[in-house]
């Protein structure tokens, strides 16, 4: 059997809860045993709009955390920003509603074999998958520090329970409504050095990932980032979600961010060629 998405299944899953958190919705979905197959960084593709819908494509959402406790029977948590038609529809679902999902999809964050200090950087709802990751890194003995940024405080997603696995958390908002005024990248160079971080993990807007890569490259630190490109299928069959990625031999090719991503090695992404013709 092919290794692509080898654990992915299409299932109808019931919503366990849907709670507003700031501008986001925290949506918990019962996915049973599939929860055991989900790794931090994986995403889920959800059918939106219901019957008779004019929306024909699934929407991708990062899996924030999974719980495999026998009490809940396996759940995954999503952090959804109601924006356009599909995400608004999803945020309108209530407990018990069934949603059609394909999960788990895509690559996962690589976890170091040794407990090394790591820094997690999230922008907006991009912090979501970092909390699941933090728990695992923390459990493996890594020191985990986190930096979150957003345009304004209500766009910062930083749940109480998520902070348990984190050593320090620094917050930046562009309007200064929470934490420091500015962007996550403002003092990133110094922070990586101070923390002696061996790996930077990131998730957020593409411009942020690109800026982080510049810094991690200068410091020669590993940067694993979760990218976000428009995806029509989420399973590797349409070629819409591509990013220019440099191979071992230096040549750049267009890789699918749904199966060769969303977690990619930031230093291999040819950021200045994103959105340009090769």
């Amino acid at each position, binding site marked *: 059997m092919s290794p692509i998405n080898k654990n992915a299944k299409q299932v109808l899953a019931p919503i366990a809860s849907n709670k507003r958190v700031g501008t986001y919705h925290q949506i918990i979905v019962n996915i049973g045993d599939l929860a055991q197959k989900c790794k931090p960084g994986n995403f889920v593709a959800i059918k939106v709009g219901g019957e008779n819908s004019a929306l024909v494509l699934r929407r991708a959402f990062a899996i924030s955390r999974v719980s495999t406790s026998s009490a809940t029977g396996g759940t995954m948590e999503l952090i959804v920003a109601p924006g356009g038609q599909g995400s608004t529809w999803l945020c309108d679902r209530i407990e018990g509603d069934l949603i059609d999902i394909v999960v788990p999809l895509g690559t996962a964050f690589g976890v170091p074999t040794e407990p090394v200090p790591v820094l997690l950087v999230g922008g907006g709802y991009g912090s979501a998958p970092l909390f699941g990751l933090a728990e695992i890194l923390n459990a493996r003995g890594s020191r985990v520090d986190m930096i979150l940024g957003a345009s304004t405080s209500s766009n910062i997603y930083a749940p109480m329970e998520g902070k348990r696995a984190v050593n320090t958390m620094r917050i930046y908002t562009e309007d200064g409504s929470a934490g420091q005024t500015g962007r996550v990248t403002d003092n990133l160079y110094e922070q990586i050095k101070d923390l002696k971080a061996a790996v930077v993990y990131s998730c957020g807007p593409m411009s942020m990932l690109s800026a982080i890569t510049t810094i991690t490259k200068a410091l020669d630190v590993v940067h694993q980032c979760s990218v976000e490109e428009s995806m029509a299928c989420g399973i590797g069959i*349409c070629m819409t979600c591509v990013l220019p990625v440099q191979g071992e031999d230096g040549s750049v090719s267009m890789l699918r961010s749904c199966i060769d991503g969303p977690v990619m090695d930031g230093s291999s992404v040819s950021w200045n060629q994103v959105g340009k013709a090769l």
Partner: protein
Amino acid sequence: MTTIDFSTTIGNAWFPAPTFTASGCASSGRELAQFFPLREMGGVVTKSVMSRVRPGRPTPRMAETPSGMLNSIGLQGPGIDAFLAQDIPYLVEQKARVIVSIAGETVEEYSTLARKLRSVSGISAVEVNISCPNVENRGLVFACDPDASRRVIDGVRRTLGGELPIIAKLSPDVTDLVSIARGVVDAGADGLALINTVLGMVINVNTMRPQLGGKTGGLSGPAIRPIAVRAVYQVHAALPKTPILGMGGIANGKDALEMILAGASGVSIGTASFGNPTAIMSIQSELKQMLIDRGFKSLKDAIGYAHRVEEVTNE
């Protein structure tokens, strides 16, 4: 359980079921194989392949539209040699029936591609995607130019000899589809694939620029189904003996039946697989059941059934 002969033929190629992937909507096949065994459908139509490696168009490459989507992939692909080395063996190993789709920028390129296919085993037919810009004629799409269309098919026919069936894939963006269809059939096409995507555009009202990196894109999905059904109906009326692979917005068994009744010998499913990875499997079983429910003993009896002459009734 009632049974039915669900098989179909295109030229001398036989398929156990009339359901295929649409070119460019199943990548190399491996990705869908996670969701169902590829051999269970009629066949895999591979992504149109060109002579050399192609990076394709800049992103964003897609925009969702009402009941449809635009894509602007620009035929990204590994080139024919890598494709034959990597993808065909996998598909053959999976016991999938394979229709290889080829695309070129010159009449010559199509023939070159055909030549490479001659000695490859495990291929049931060749789909010639002529909805590509002709670099030798101001980028005018081959399928929009009756003469260039004919020359492409003629070149492929000569190169392939009489063995592999040739399916010419046409664009609906023409004034007179029937005359293009007639031209390529005269030039040696055994079958036709209808329809490729319809040229469209979305403008992002925030950036106030075209949404796609490539500006225009191809419209697919249920939105275009009435256009596709009309195309198949018109061409089947004019060329009733030419098998047609019908496609454009097929999302369930009813849609597939509509296309068969219009005159298609088989159906390709593209965009529906994006929304539902197992779409082809459910379309296949729904279609079979609907044919049985309507008393058909074989799929072939349903092909073009909407064209039957009205019985004279005296009320």
